[in-house]
């Protein structure tokens, strides 16, 4: 076991199974384009500092897809997560540092849970290869604990309910390129982790599947609710990521609940990861382009943004529709009441996402034009390049639906044309539109409602503030030396000795001792 652990490091056990290739391609695409975008938009003096953190994060982010054993996985996971702190705190404002601390806290906790899970499983499987760990999970002596640890570790990464505040915090302050990478790639590592470790499609102690589904549902709807009420466009996108990941959790939960639905669950998770990754990255880049654009270019950009938004909602002919198709199949195949309930709720989740997208557009339009160096009017060259990069992302998102490698994707696309699924895909959007219009009229007066009442990061930000207040460093205690005069007990002892050595007493004591000795001897 030790040498196994040891030899693994030496050889750096990495492999390229199909899961690794898919995620590898996805991650390298997103990290690549984000890097280029950041290169173009970030002013040159800060560029050195940004890329000092960006490069290791990118290497970790891509490497993690190919890791085959626990140590390499954990190594890449850490290599991706810790430098990202630098990306979050790049603008060096007080708010950025607070967000950085919160991010660090959540990440470290996530890593700790992951490490614990890996250790447990490694001890159980007597080896450190992920495949064997995955096999050992179900039958492990402390299976429950291990399962909880795995779900918690990757749940934190996905922004599951409770921690969903972490995502908006992370993306709020990161520069555009970095935010798109973080939102697009690093979140998906959570999904990859779950796929690597959870034995989808195998017999699993009952209750696990249900738990994940419930978690997924709560996350989907909770995050959506928070997203609608939050204040900044990037925060809305953060919450929407959390909500989308909730859907993925539902899929995985279904896969766990019923082995039959295992293959579809994996397909759904992968599809969602790819679709959401691309769409969310585009949205973030788009948000930045829009903020820096003016006049008709701004209107054109806004219009273009509608495409990824629609994809997220799962409109027909978009990658979202394909992913949702796979998710529906996973949910339907799984037996049991809970999966079916989840199936019906899926469409309502789409409503949530649509509402989020509307909220996003509303907030984005209110954003003042950022006169910063990157405005279209100003140094035109970098902005134009940024726009071109963004356009390429748009193309990817649009094309994703068609050039999907997986076999089943073809009949998914065809199903777009039969009326029932067409209707199923569009009604959530319409309902969301109606609800939004109604809300605007009702809350005309309440400016605050428009402003949003939930600060980005809600629970997590609050916890960080409390902890850092408690951690206010305590100065070292100063030790006062100095002599102590003989008072109290010492004085008493000295006087006792003084009395003792008075001649009469002393000699008397000697004779008494002599007499006592004689008596004792008798």
């Amino acid at each position, binding site marked *: 076991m030790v040498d196994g652990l040891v030899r693994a490091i030496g050889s750096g056990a990495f492999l390229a199974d199909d899961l690794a290739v898919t995620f590898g391609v996805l991650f390298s695409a997103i990290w690549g384009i984000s890097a280029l975008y950041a290169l173009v938009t970030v002013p040159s003096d800060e560029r050195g500092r940004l890329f000092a953190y960006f490069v290791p994060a990118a290497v970790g982010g891509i490497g993690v897809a190919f890791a085959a054993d626990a140590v390499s996985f954990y190594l890449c996971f850490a290599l991706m997560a810790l430098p990202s702190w630098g990306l979050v705190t790049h603008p060096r404002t007080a708010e950025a540092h607070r967000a950085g601390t919160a991010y660090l806290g959540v990440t470290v906790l996530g890593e700790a849970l992951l490490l614990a899970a890996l250790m447990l499983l490694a001890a159980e499987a007597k080896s450190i290869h992920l495949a064997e760990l995955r096999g050992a999970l179900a039958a492990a002596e402390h299976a429950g604990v291990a399962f909880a640890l795995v779900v918690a570790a990757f749940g934190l990464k996905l922004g599951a309910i409770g921690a969903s505040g972490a995502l908006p915090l992370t993306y709020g302050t990161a520069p555009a390129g970095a935010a798109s990478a973080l939102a697009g790639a690093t979140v998906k590592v959570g999904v990859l982790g779950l796929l690597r470790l959870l034995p989808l499609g195998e017999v699993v102690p009952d209750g696990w599947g249900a738990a994940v589904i419930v978690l997924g549902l709560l996350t989907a709807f909770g995050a959506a609710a928070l997203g609608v009420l939050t204040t900044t466009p990037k925060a809305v996108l953060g919450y929407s990521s959390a909500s989308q990941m909730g859907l993925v959790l539902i899929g995985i939960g279904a896969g766990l609940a019923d082995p039959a639905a295992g293959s579809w669950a994996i397909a759904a998770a992968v599809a969602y990861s790819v679709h959401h990754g691309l769409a969310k990255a585009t949205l973030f880049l788009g948000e930045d382009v829009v903020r820096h654009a003016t006049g008709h270019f701004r209107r054109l950009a806004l219009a273009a943004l509608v495409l990824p938004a629609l994809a997220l909602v799962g409109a027909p002919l978009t990658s979202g529709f394909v992913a949702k198709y796979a998710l529906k199949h996973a949910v339907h195949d799984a037996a049991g009441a809970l999966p079916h309930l989840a199936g019906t709720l899926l469409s309502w989740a789409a409503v949530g996402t649509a509402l989020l997208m509307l909220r996003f557009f509303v907030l984005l339009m209110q954003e003042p034009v950022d006169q910063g160096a990157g405005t279209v009017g100003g140094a035109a060259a970098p902005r134009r390049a940024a726009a071109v990069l963004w356009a390429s992302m748009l193309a990817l998102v649009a094309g994703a639906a068609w050039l999907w490698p997986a076999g089943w994707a073809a009949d998914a696309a065809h199903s777009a044309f039969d009326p029932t699924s067409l209707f199923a895909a569009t009604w959530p959007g319409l309902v969301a539109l109606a609800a939004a219009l109604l809300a605007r009229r009702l809350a005309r007066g309440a400016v605050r409602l428009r402003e949003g009442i939930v600060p980005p990061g809600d629970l997590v930000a609050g916890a960080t503030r409390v902890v850092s207040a408690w951690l206010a460093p305590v100065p070292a205690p100063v030790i006062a030396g100095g002599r102590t005069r003989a008072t109290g007990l010492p004085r008493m002892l000295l006087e006792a000795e003084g009395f003792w050595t008075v001649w*009469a007493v002393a000699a*008397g004591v000697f004779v*008494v001792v*002599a*007499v006592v000795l*004689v008596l004792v001897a008798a």
Partner: protein
Amino acid sequence: MRDRERLLAPVPVLVALATLAVVTRAVLSLPRSAEGLYGPVAEAAARAGISNRVTAVLLDFRGYDTLLEIAVLMLATVAVLSLREDPRQLYRRLSERATPVLAALTRILVPLAFVVSVHLVWIGSSQPGGAFQAAAVLGATGILLSLSGYARPQWVGRTAMRSILAVGLLTFIGIAVLAMVAGGALLEYPEGTRKTLMLVIESLLTLSIGASLASLFLSSASGDSERDGR
């Protein structure tokens, strides 16, 4: 301290009574008659040819005790000598008191005392007498001489005086070691020589002890010197 004084007043009496009780109990428990070492001493003394058994025990059987005893006396003398203050002041005060009557008395008494001490040493082996009694007489003559001004106190520090003081112990050790060289154990006088050797020891001892007693008196008779502790 006042109340502590009253509290402790009866303690010495109680302690003394306790000692008395303990010793009495021991004495009363002893058998009424016990031979002790009377027999063996009598027989050994007869064999060694010494009539006075106590002298035999003192000088022969437990001679080592006597040797150490002489060492004690000499040590005391040395100690008192080390305690004496500056001898010069001593001389001035003593000589002032010398009166003609005292001088005349000294001239008569000293030779007489000398003869008496020699006699005492000689009869010591058979009747009560011996080194210590003779030394006492010699000591007294020494004091008389210094009081009458003939002997000066600062002589005490002199080499001559010191050698007289030491000669007693040195000869005793010398003879003891000689006995060893002559084949026996320490203090094992060779046959027949016991009487003469004992006499030699006795006489030199008398000289030393007499000098010691005199110097004990002289070195501390410093009169009322000022109280400057040195």
